């Protein structure tokens, strides 16, 4: 018996179950409070009350039964371990583009064992194609399970690992790469890969799901189909994110990796392009390109720079916020800050002297806006001009998160003793579409 077989149980209940040699999945009889129940012992929800056990009744429903001194539990039969049968290899179509699906976490496709509720992600190409057979007609698919990490746990090392894996496939003449990713930090990863893999010869498509794949309404399959089609057929070589355009399952928006951000906690259309439109839409099996400044597929200008340095910091200014935090962080080794200021790019005037000291010491301080939409302009008001004089660099219409990732990448790619001016120059150079010089009105379509 090991702990996982009594997942979620603790204390006297765990002791009782161990004494009776009962594990999760076993059929048991429980007598409690004068009633007799028969069913399968289920795992417990981590936050659930510790005085109950969960039983799946023969009609398929789960109930919780309170365990007291007088409760007895006896094993009727040992549970059958969920065995996920290997799915048959689907028939493939020859002469299709070769696409690799790299998984990093989150489950884009899965199967459910209804008896225990166990969910098994489909990781290999076989499983994936059996579950989403539409893919067979779009591309010849190979898969690589790179990581299995929640997106909130993704770190710089993962970005580097992903960039390395993709670069490997680029050199193997693959026609397109799809990277499945948890949605929480997918925007950051998209930005990171945009800087690490500049002007790539093939599309690199990040994709995720806002509804998990163990439910019939999951957006995973629709997003993945669009992602694979984009990877296989798009005429551009760009790092992009493919997610629902709106609440409907019909249109998938293809966002530029340096322009996209998660703007909703739960909705399918959580990802939006900010200060720009998506560069393409996938609908009715067709990819419609709407941007015209794209790096073409097969581009020979590919640059691979997979280095990042995490000594950068993103700070959101708020009323009454004191500037000491900058000094403290700089003392702890932070080499640069992105300040998400108010409006056109402001912080309160008592920050000016602190900023002046830091920039004098070679610390980079860039300004973006917490408005999210629009461009910073620090010439309009005195406060902005004072901040510039103190050394703050206005970062144009760059998204704060993208600016942070870019700063990490800049530090990673410049020598350690690089001049502040070099950092500044790189930060203000448009590398992967993160800076647009033209601001366009909101036309009502995302």
């Amino acid at each position, binding site marked *: 018996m090991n702990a996982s077989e009594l997942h979620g149980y603790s204390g006297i209940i765990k002791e009782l179950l161990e004494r009776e040699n009962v594990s999760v999945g076993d059929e048991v009889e429980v007598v409690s409070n004068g009633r007799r129940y028969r069913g399968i012992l289920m795992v417990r929800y981590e936050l659930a009350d510790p005085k109950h056990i969960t039983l799946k009744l023969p009609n398929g429903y789960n109930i919780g039964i309170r365990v007291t001194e007088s409760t007895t539990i006896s094993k009727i039969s040992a549970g059958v371990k969920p065995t996920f049968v290997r799915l048959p290899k689907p028939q493939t179509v020859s002469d299709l583009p070769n696409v690799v699906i790299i998984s990093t976490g989150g489950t884009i496709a899965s199967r*459910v064992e209804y008896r225990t509720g166990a969910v098994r992600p489909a990781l290999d190409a076989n499983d994936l194609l059996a579950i989403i057979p539409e893919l067979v007609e779009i591309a010849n698919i190979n898969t690589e399970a790179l990581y299995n990490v929640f997106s909130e746990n993704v770190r710089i090392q993962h970005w580097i690992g992903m960039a390395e894996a993709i670069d490997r496939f680029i050199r193997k003449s693959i026609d397109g790469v799809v990277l499945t990713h948890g949605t929480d930090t997918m925007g950051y990863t998209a930005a990171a890969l945009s800087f690490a893999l500049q002007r790539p010869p093939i599309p690199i498509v990040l994709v995720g799901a806002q509804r998990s794949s163990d439910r*019939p309404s999951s957006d995973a399959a629709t997003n993945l189909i669009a992602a694979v089609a984009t990877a296989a057929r798009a005429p551009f070589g760009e790092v992009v994110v493919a997610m629902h355009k709106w609440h409907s399952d019909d249109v998938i928006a293809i966002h530029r990796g340096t322009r996209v951000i998660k703007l909703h906690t*739960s909705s399918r259309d959580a990802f939006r392009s900010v200060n720009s439109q998506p560069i393409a839409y996938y609908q009715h099996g067709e990819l419609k390109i709407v941007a015209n400044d794209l790096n073409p597929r097969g581009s020979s200008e590919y640059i691979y720079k997979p280095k990042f340095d995490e000594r950068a910091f993103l700070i959101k200014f708020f009323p009454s916020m004191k500037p000491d935090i900058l000094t403290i962080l700089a003392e702890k080794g932070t080499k640069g800050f992105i300040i998400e200021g108010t409006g056109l790019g402001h912080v309160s005037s008592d920050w000016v002297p602190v900023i002046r000291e830091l920039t004098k010491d070679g610390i980079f301080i860039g300004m973006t806006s917490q408005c999210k939409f629009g461009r910073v302009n620090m010439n309009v008001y005195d406060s902005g001009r004072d901040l510039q004089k103190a050394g703050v660099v206005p970062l144009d219409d760059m998204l704060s998160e993208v600016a942070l990732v870019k700063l990490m990448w800049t530090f990673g790619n410049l020598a350690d003793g690089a001049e502040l001016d070099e950092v500044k120059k790189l930060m203000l150079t448009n590398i992967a579409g993160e800076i647009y010089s033209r601001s366009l009105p909101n036309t009502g379509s995302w």
Partner: protein
Amino acid sequence: MEDYSKVGLKVGLEIHRQLNTKKKLFCDCPTEAVEGAESITFMRRLREVQSELGMVDAAAMFESRKRKTIIYHADLKNVCLVEMDEEPPHNLNPEALEVALTVALLLDSKPVDEVHVMRKIVIDGSNTTGFQRTCVVAIGGQIKIKNKIIPIQAITLEEDAARIIEVRKDEVHYDLSRLGIPLIEVSTEPVIESPEEAIEVAYAIGRILRATGKVKRGIGTVRQDLNISIRGGAPVEIKGVQELELIQKVVENEVKRQMHLLWIKEELLKRGVKKEDIWGAKPVDVTSIFSKTSSRVIKRQIEAGGVVYAIVLKGFAGLLALHPSPGIRLGAEIAGRVKVWSEVEGIFHTDELPNYGITVEEVKVLRDVTHAGESDAVVIVAAEEGKALDAINVIKERAVEALDGVPEETRAARPDGTTVYMRPRPGSARMYPETDIPPIVISQDYIESLKARLPPTLDTTAQQLVERYGLSKQLANDLIDSEVVEDFEDIVSKTGAPPTLVASTLTELLRSLRRDGINIEKITKAHMMRFFELVSCGKVAKEAVRDVLTAVAQKGQNVEQIIEELRLWSPPTSEVEDKIKTLVKEHKQEILNDERKAVAKLMGKLMKDYRGRVNGALINSMLLKAIQELKSDTL
């Protein structure tokens, strides 16, 4: 009528009823429809989640084969991101849980210690998630009817599904307003032994539910599912019985159907038919036989590029068309299954041919080409090739099941009490935990506090109605079973109309109008209120009620307009008095000769003029008074 004990009839009831809570089960949207909201439509597709075996459940598979694009209509006053499956569910509505627990206590059912919300897979689109959220709230219990105790299996609380509004070829439309309204389900053990008993149990459970004062009323708020089997048959689930009165017919028909299927099984065995014969039969392309057919259905299919396939059912001759009662035929069973699974309309069998434009000659050639013997039946399908082959497989499958008797399946009730095939019965496998909602502990203290404030039962309510309004016990119970007690009390208190008149109008009269085929949906409470107001102040006679309400139902105008049109306004009392006085004077001699005879004659005359406009009893008393005056003047 059958002797149900002889056939071993066992019926289980599932009563579903919407709860009248303020909010929905898993979000804060109102459960009452709010008019005039902005609405949006969006499009979705559902995709079956595969099981560990790489297979989907038969029922889920079935739905996915019919997969259509789903269009949802969301009225934004009644629908939020939760119903749209764009936000995780909020916590289980405590008000709904309390109602369900109250019902449980009233039914002697034992609340579970901890409620776990489950996901029950339903991928026809009626739930945006692809599953219905449902939870067992209590187990066991009982309800007493006459001298029998009916055990309760379980009480569950679930979210109501979206309402289907349109089915097109590749699209199905749903309105989301209803999705998420709390629905309580009370299911009995399958121990009910006659249709009458089933109705009695349904009423008894209905009274318990209504005693909580928290259930919705009206069309679509109640649905009954029946689980019916006879000895040797199989449990068949019949869904969507809306009217209690229909239960009787549905049970009767289902017993007949199962008996017929059992008889067919015996007959097939007698004839030596084997499953292998059916499975082994190969479809034959018989399109050429029908190249010049006058059957419009087949012609249309062939012209559209379709084919005609035939399959021989060895030993089935005569059995497909045989029908012990209307609507019960093996042929109809097969056609129903084909229609649902492969959406093929052009299906015929030799038992019913020649007919439908198919000639004797065509049938003869068909039999020759397929080498069908005299004891065999041939079924033909006209459709596009893929669909036709699908249909042939479905036909074989159903024919094989005929050798086992009654297939376990889910059927839908039709308004005439017959049923049609809906889908295979879902296994229990299609349920898994709703991990977005933590389990809810039901404490002993909470249960004790609910026990201390259980609502009065409806027997108490009936007694109160009798005492307060002088109604007969029968009328009081009728008000309760017709679920109009609140309306009744409201109308009586606001209009001052005679309680018995209001009560019988709300129950007997409406029932009788409906029996006469009048659609009473247009009659609103406001209509009733206005009419009884007019009765109370003497502007219209209570006798006019039937005519007025009939006209309201048919024309939907307001009550005054109708009374005007039908000329039912009561004349002023003085006018009636004058008329009576004149009459009495004119018939003075007759009155003095034989008063009783004269009164009868004059009443007849007066009623001819005033029927429906003036209360007869009032005329009578006025007449007698006038005669009295005449006599005293004469003296």
